[in-house]
């Protein structure tokens, strides 16, 4: 790729260059205990040497006790790693077995970190007074702070502050970043990432032809301004919000939740600041300037499942929704698994059972209400309907409090607990009314160290397939430590200044880190098999909805309509009976353009999700899903080849290819290939496609019936059928299914 030098002069890069200091590389300094050493102890040692168990009378989570040592004597001798018994055990020296006894041995780098830390004096910050729970000093509970950008040798590579952190680490490891991806790859990557749709051939051609300075920045601006941006990023949020169109459980009845889904799309398109985005969803009924819109936003916590089974006790069912709201709030904003603390204090994190019920108490005084939203016009049929969306409203009276449940059992009421933030995090400001609004504001206030980090990390994960904290669902002591802690904190602080998601997206996609090629260099992947160091861009299979959006877009079938009631697209036969035999739930394929809407508008039935999406790892959305797995299975191959949803796309795509300008089949085939992957086919690829096309033509030439079947009886000819077979192949190319 011919570099566009002018892009170096973007605003962020300019500021960055001023900020770069000539400080020594971090590696030369003593490891910081909280950042570098405590996470190793937390992951590998404290399950046997912590608050729960103290094997050998040794405890490694409290400074005083750790430095005092255990029955084997002094484990840590500040300034003398060679004389520290801890090091001998970690290295497996002497007669005793190597530590840790259970689990994986420490890596050489981890052992070196601890040794360097001991040699530098084993500086261990004092534990907070009055507690022996040093766990409160876990890195993610300490507020993020921005450190000066690290110095790097290859300053010309750095476009944004992100790159300084990434490059500093790479240079420390002696690894060079990958070259920039070519323009075809860049526009396809940015389009799929920002709006969830592939670029048209015209857009690709225009971007390649744009030799003026700032071409890439203009591309990014265009994509961020697209109404499809909100659709693409709502898709991710809706997994967290466990958005669905049915109740779940046995009866799984339909419910009207789509106005909430559309609210998310609108809020994202308008770049509603994330703090406001949070407050409206958790307490849009309580804010001083509450509107219909903000009340629709409270649908976030009406997405909980509802069991209408005959024998269900209504109070217990309500209690179950409170548990779900509590768990979801903690998972989405605090990146923490509070669920354990429903029954007992968390084993590894400082979350107590009291904390759990104190958080639950914020939700115990909410009523479920219908929010009249006036009338709505369905885009498909133009008809106007009266509409009420589901939301929350606060009960008029009473203090936010609830009874703790002993061992989590609904019937075993324990002490009365007043609503409060978890004790290991700062409290609510003095004097505020203790309600959902106070909680929402607290979550996005500077005193909460987690929300910004967790959110930034989740977005990073969407771009790089792994978060800076790989366990994006667990920022506790059992989660992984950040690969680039200073970068994570830098982004978190920058994000929390204005809470603008679009600015965050722009910052990431304009970075040199993002713009690298994704080619796998064998020598580098040997050393860094999971690309934690980011010496290349990542490549990964498109998620379920995007896979279908991509196929519909390539085939020209996609309806661009934004918002409205959920739709019922074509899918595997007997779709309504695939997983359950519920007769009252038929699946009548939507008429007209609604058959080809984007995936996020597909009717989400919890007990029997749209099979095409379920096959490609979409969750049922019964509960909050923080990370989708990304599997690769034969059932996915069968779906890609034979699923009516993808076959219909292949038929339309085949016709589109056949109608493209050009004299030779090669022209049509190359056009189809470009539609799928944005670049020209190689000579070998084109030759292979021509060969297959000719063979298919010959095979269909002798069989009019099969030809008609493949063409769906429209304009049937052996050539048309052969183009459809090629379209079927092209839609299943690894490259078509992959964001490169």
């Amino acid at each position, binding site marked *: 790729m011919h570099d566009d030098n002018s892009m170096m002069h973007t605003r962020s890069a300019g500021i960055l260059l001023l900020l770069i200091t000539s400080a020594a590389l971090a590696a030369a300094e003593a490891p910081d205990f909280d950042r570098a050493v405590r996470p190793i102890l937390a992951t590998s040692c404290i399950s046997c040497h912590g608050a729960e168990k103290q094997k050998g009378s040794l405890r490694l989570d409290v400074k005083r006790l750790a430095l005092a040592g255990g029955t084997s004597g002094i484990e840590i001798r500040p300034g003398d790693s060679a004389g520290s018994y801890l090091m001998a055990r970690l290295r497996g020296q002497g007669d005793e077995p190597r530590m840790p006894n259970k689990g994986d041995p420490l890596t050489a780098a981890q052992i070196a970190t601890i040794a360097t830390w001991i040699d530098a004096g084993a500086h261990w910050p004092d534990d907070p007074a009055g507690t022996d729970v040093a766990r409160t000093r876990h890195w993610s509970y300490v507020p993020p702070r921005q450190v000066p950008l690290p110095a790097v040798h290859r300053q010309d590579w750095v476009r944004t502050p992100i790159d300084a952190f990434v490059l500093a680490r790479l240079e420390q490891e002696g690894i060079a970043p990958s070259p920039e991806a070519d323009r075809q790859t860049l526009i396809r990557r940015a389009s799929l990432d920002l709006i969830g749709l592939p670029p048209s051939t015209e857009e690709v051609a225009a971007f390649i032809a744009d030799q003026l300075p700032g071409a890439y920045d203009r591309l990014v601006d265009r994509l961020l301004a697209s109404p499809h941006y909100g659709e693409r990023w709502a898709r991710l949020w809706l997994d967290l919000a466990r958005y669905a169109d049915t109740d779940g459980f046995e009866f*799984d009845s339909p419910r009207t939740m789509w106005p909430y889904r559309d609210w998310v799309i609108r809020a994202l398109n308008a770049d509603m600041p994330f703090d406001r985005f949070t407050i409206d969803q958790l307490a849009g009924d309580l804010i001083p300037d509450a509107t219909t819109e903000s009340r629709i936003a409270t649908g976030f916590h009406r997405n909980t499942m509802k069991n209408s089974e005959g024998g269900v006790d209504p109070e217990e069912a309500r209690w179950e929704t409170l548990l779900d709201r509590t768990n979801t709030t903690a998972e989405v904003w605090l990146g923490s698994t509070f669920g354990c603390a429903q029954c007992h204090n968390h084993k590894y994190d400082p979350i107590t059972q009291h904390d759990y019920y104190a958080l639950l108490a914020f939700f115990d005084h909410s009523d479920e209400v219908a929010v009249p939203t006036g009338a709505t016009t369905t885009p498909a049929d133009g008809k106007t309907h009266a509409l009420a969306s589901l939301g929350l409203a606060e009960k008029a009276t009473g203090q936010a409090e609830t009874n703790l449940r002993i061992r989590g059992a609904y019937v075993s009421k324990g002490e009365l607990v007043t609503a409060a933030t978890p004790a290991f995090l700062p409290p609510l400001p003095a004097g505020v009314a203790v309600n959902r609004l106070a909680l929402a504001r607290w979550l996005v206030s500077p005193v909460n160290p987690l929300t910004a980090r967790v959110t930034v990390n989740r977005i990073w994960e969407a771009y790089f397939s792994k978060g800076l904290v790989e366990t994006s669902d667990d920022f506790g002591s059992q989660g992984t430590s950040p690969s680039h802690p200073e970068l994570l904190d830098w982004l978190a602080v920058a994000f929390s200044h204005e809470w603008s998601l679009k600015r965050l997206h722009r910052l990431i996609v304009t970075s040199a880190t993002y713009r690298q090629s994704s080619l796998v260099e064998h020598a580098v992947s040997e050393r860094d098999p999971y690309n934690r160091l980011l010496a290349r861009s990542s490549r990964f299979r498109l998620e379920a909805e995007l896979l279908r959006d991509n196929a519909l877009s390539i085939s020209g079938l996609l309806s661009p309509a934004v918002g409205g009631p959920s739709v019922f697209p074509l899918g*595997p036969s007997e779709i309504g009976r695939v997983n359950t*035999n519920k007769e009252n739930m038929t699946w009548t394929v939507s008429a007209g353009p609604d058959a080809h809407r984007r995936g996020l508008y597909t009717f989400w039935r919890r007990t029997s999700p749209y099979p095409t999406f379920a096959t490609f790892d979409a969750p049922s959305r*019964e509960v909050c899903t923080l990370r989708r797995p990304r599997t690769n299975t034969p059932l996915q191959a069968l779906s890609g080849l034979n699923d009516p949803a993808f076959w219909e796309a292949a038929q339309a795509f085949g016709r589109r290819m056949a109608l493209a300008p050009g004299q030779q089949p090669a022209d049509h085939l190359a056009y189809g290939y470009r539609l799928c992957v944005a670049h020209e086919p190689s000579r070998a690829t084109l030759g292979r496609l021509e060969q297959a096309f000719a063979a298919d033509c010959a095979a269909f030439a002798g069989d009019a019936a099969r030809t008609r079947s*493949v063409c769906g009886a429209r304009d049937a000819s052996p050539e048309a059928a052969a183009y459809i077979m090629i379209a079927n192949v092209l839609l299943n190319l690894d490259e078509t299914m992959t964001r490169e």
Partner: protein
Amino acid sequence: MPTDDPSPHQTLSRRQLLATGTRSLGALSLMSLVGAHLVGGDAPAVRTDPLAPKAPHFPARAKRVIYLFMGGAPSQLDLFDYKPKLNELNSQPCPESLIKGERFAFIKGVPKLLGSPHTFARHGQSGMWVSELLPHTAKVVDQLAFVRSLKTDHFNHGPAQIFMNSGHQIVGRPSMGSWVTYGLGSVSDSLPGFVVLLSGDTDPGAGNACWTSGFLPTSYQGVPLRTKGDPVLCVSNPEGVDADTRRRSLDTLRALNDEHYQAVGDADILSRIEAYEMANRMQRSVPELADLSSEPASIHALYGSEPGKPGFASNCLMARRLIERGARFVQLHHRGWDHHGESAAKDIVTGLGKLCRETDQASAALITDLRGRGLLDDTLVIWGGEFGRTPMNEARNGSTFLGRDHHPRAFTMWLAGGGIKPGVIHGETDDVGYNIVADPVHVHDLHATILNCLGLDHTRLTFRFQGRDYRLTDVHGEVVRPLLA
């Protein structure tokens, strides 16, 4: 991880592979290495996919499972747990001491005790009591181990079914079939490892939550094999695409993907190529599997099945064909056992009789057939619902039809085959069948026992998710040793 492999490095790598669903070139060869060390000749060839066979924790009798799940909860008091005393007390008010502080799904006030309207007799050498509703099962009792002291924590269908299948009442944990397939992989390279077969009435059912892989990779999810249309979703080519055309497409696809791999170097592309080849093998093997007309008439007579007629009998036969072809875990769901007595169709006379006729012959036939083929020794068969039913008549809204409400405190299941001692009767309930009086078996204990039969230690079959090692049995579960062969 389910391996005796001493090298933590290999274990870590495999766990990472499973956790991420991706793999590097280095890891690929590592997987091959691990696969090659498998014992027991289980694997036809070295495989590197997530379903590749894996060694159990310890040698075991059972290699695979057929689970006949009776959704809706059959009445143990009318089938297996014979209570003459309850018959004597028929129509008497239920003693306060039993129901004080109890919560029922539907029963209100003081209900009346309800004896069984069915005749019981002892059968086989074990002398197990079986009701007249199950004449075929009565003939194979000596092959079965009965547990009359099952108990669960939940008394509504949805949560209880999810609990029985995943060890947790809230959706999101992996189902038992997913755990087993994760732990042992699958011998077949052309069929799914965990297959689900559905029959019976519509409700109640917790839907696909019963066979979800939860937080395990989707590769371990139960694949419903359907009796109408494509047996496996999308296994048939679109109309007009014959096998030759499909193969030609796949050859082109393979060539182009391989070219892309040469350029990009990402081993995920190789995995994708292999997934498409496996899909093509499934296209050939599934129709052969699903073609029940190839079975002789004597077999259809044994099961009570007819080619082309969907239902529980066909599903039992299909289950045998699946395990013969290497499937690891086959789960049948036959639904409709929810006999509250609102109507004749929902009572314990007519309604229960119908469900028994739908299932009795084929369940017994499966045992007989597996035994005849020498497959019962290493196949574990399980029969049962999500909870039991009350010794009291529900009489909802004054209904005159006899019916029983949900009862989580005591119910009966049977197990047979690999690892199970035949002819055992385990556990005992009180005179009216309300409470367990000897050898209670909680659902977690059942799960631990099932895994044990397969050579899996329920405390070691773990998967790390959200910072914690999860297991099917959570932090509970004791293997029920008296049931083991």
